């Protein structure tokens, strides 16, 4: 389903939950609404579903305004955060509910339930009650129930929040695969950036009720449009006085400009590690080293600035107090009016952007 939202606003009492949100979603896409908790993501989802009325603005499905359509008539499947399964009904009864309500013939209901049970890998669990299922199974029942009446749009509210980390990973790829196979337009809410980056075709970053940026995960990572997006995606350190770093002296021309530097923008090492780029490096001292399971997280002090970077386990182990050379490849600069990415100007010629 083609979805369009224009100038959406919603207040709860004095609290402005959603402010002037515009977006368009093409048919068949999987969209992640990403942002901190309490940022208005769920409110947007609930307004699309018709469970909440916008104070102003229009919601259009296939170019038709649906603001006044009740949730029952919008043709949307909704997967709730805690699944909201009907706890007095079995798995099969849960899945059949929407079809019974729509007065499908019995034989057709049975066929559709069997099909969905098969699709979601719940065969053998049809007669169980929700409290007899694991979290992952409940999630799949909720998914099957939402899909049963053949909705044109699927909304998922924090679909993996209540599932432990290991199964969450598995379920994510399962969901992605399932949605690809069905070709259904889907929107899911999450506060977990890994989840959004891994699963979504496009991400919408929502903060304090505003849509900060919409784009593919790669666009958002590479070219954040607002300081919030830059700091929210990936790990990063804010540097107040970026002009004091080598290669970024020009920034002093814009007073009040601060910089965001991601760990992967920084390289640390010794003289022999930087052959051509030696002139662009800076002396620093290792202040902390943390083991991260698959890499080291290294904190370095350069003058008065503290920088954070990763270091491969294959390289020499750094120790606290080591004198190292630091190369800052690029920084994301921002002030009150503007924001842009600046490359280290001492680096000889452009190099391929790699992480």
């Amino acid at each position, binding site marked *: 389903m083609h979805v369009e939202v224009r100038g959406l606003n919603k207040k709860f009492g004095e609290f402005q939950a959603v402010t002037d949100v515009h977006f368009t979603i093409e048919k068949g896409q999987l969209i992640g609404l990403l942002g901190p908790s309490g940022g208005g993501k769920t409110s947007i989802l609930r307004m699309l579903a018709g*469970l909440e009325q916008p104070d102003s603005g229009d919601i259009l499905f296939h170019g038709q305004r649906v603001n006044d359509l009740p949730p029952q008539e919008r043709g949307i499947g909704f997967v709730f955060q805690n699944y909201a399964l009907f706890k007095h009904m079995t798995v099969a009864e849960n899945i059949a509910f929407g079809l019974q309500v729509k007065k499908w013939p019995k034989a057709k209901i049975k066929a559709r339930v069997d099909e969905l049970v098969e699709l979601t890998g719940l065969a053998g669990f049809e007669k169980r009650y929700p409290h007899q299922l694991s979290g992952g199974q409940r999630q799949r029942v909720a998914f099957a129930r939402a899909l049963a009446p053949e909705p044109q749009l699927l909304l998922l509210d924090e679909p993996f929040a209540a599932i432990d980390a290991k199964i969450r990973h598995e379920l994510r790829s399962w969901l992605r695969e399932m949605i690809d196979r069905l070709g259904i337009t889907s929107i899911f809410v999450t506060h977990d950036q890994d989840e959004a980056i891994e699963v979504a075709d496009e991400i919408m970053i929502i903060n304090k009720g505003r849509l900060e940026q919409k784009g593919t995960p790669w666009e958002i990572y590479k070219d954040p449009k607002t300081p919030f997006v830059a700091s929210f995606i990936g790990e990063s350190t804010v540097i107040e006085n970026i002009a004091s770093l080598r290669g970024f002296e020009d920034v002093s021309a814009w007073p009040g400009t601060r910089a965001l530097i991601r760990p992967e923008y920084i390289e640390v090492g010794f003289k022999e590690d930087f052959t051509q780029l030696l002139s662009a490096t800076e002396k620093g001292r290792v202040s902390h080293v943390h083991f991260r399971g698959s890499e080291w997280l290294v904190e370095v002090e350069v003058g008065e600035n503290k920088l954070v970077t990763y270091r491969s386990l294959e390289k020499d182990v750094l120790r606290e107090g080591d004198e190292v050379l630091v190369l800052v490849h690029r920084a994301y600069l921002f002030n009150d009016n503007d924001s842009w990415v600046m490359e280290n100007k001492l680096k000889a010629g452009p190099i391929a952007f790699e992480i």
Partner: protein
Amino acid sequence: MRRLWIGLTYIVFGLLLIVPVVRIAAGAWEEGWRGFAAGLTRPEALHALMMTGIIAVAVTLINTLFGVMLAVYLVRAKWLRPQLKRLLNSIVDLPFAVSPIIGGLMIVLLLGPETTLGALLGRMGVDIVYALPGMLIATLFVTFPLVIREVMPVLQEIGTQQEEAAHMLGAYPWTTFWRVTWPSIRWSVVYGVVLTVSRCLGEFGAVLVVSGNILFKTQTATTLVYQDVENFNLTEANSVALVLAAASIGLLLFMEWAKSRNSAGRHG
């Protein structure tokens, strides 16, 4: 020491609850089966038990219907402001806080034959006070919170998500209520009904004030017991009291059975 406390607890429990019931039973059987039967089959006893029965059935029906509706509105309605909800919520408890006699008195003062409203209704041929309608109103007032207080916490606990899920699947409010909400609250409605019936059987103060305790007209089982005791008809009084006590105990046992069934159903 611990045994002493346990023993003491049993003694207090026995003195307060068991002894009176045994005493009533013994009193009812003082003249054997014949005395018990005679006490119950007196015309005034039959009429009083009938009045109590009518009141119990009517009040339970009305309070169940409106109690469930009010509970749903108080918990779910979005159009009620939170302050108003809190106010209504505390008003629901008013009958618990006010003595039943005061409740009865309020009805007499509002609808008695000397009041404008009562006189107006009286001229239209409808008697409220010292007649069945007044007794119904008094009992409704006293038992009003019972169903609501049983149902509201359950509604709050189950939350709105299952209902919203039903809406998203195309179910309109009526279908949603019967297929999703009702199965979750029905046992609490049953508890509320049992408590309401027991209370209807046992209500005395409010009914006494409103009914005037008129023989063969507005006398209920409890006010008959009261009158019998006043007149030293102790066997008769005990007979009627035993029937009331047995009915209430039976209902409460039924409730316990329902509870155990319910929790068994929930886990198994």
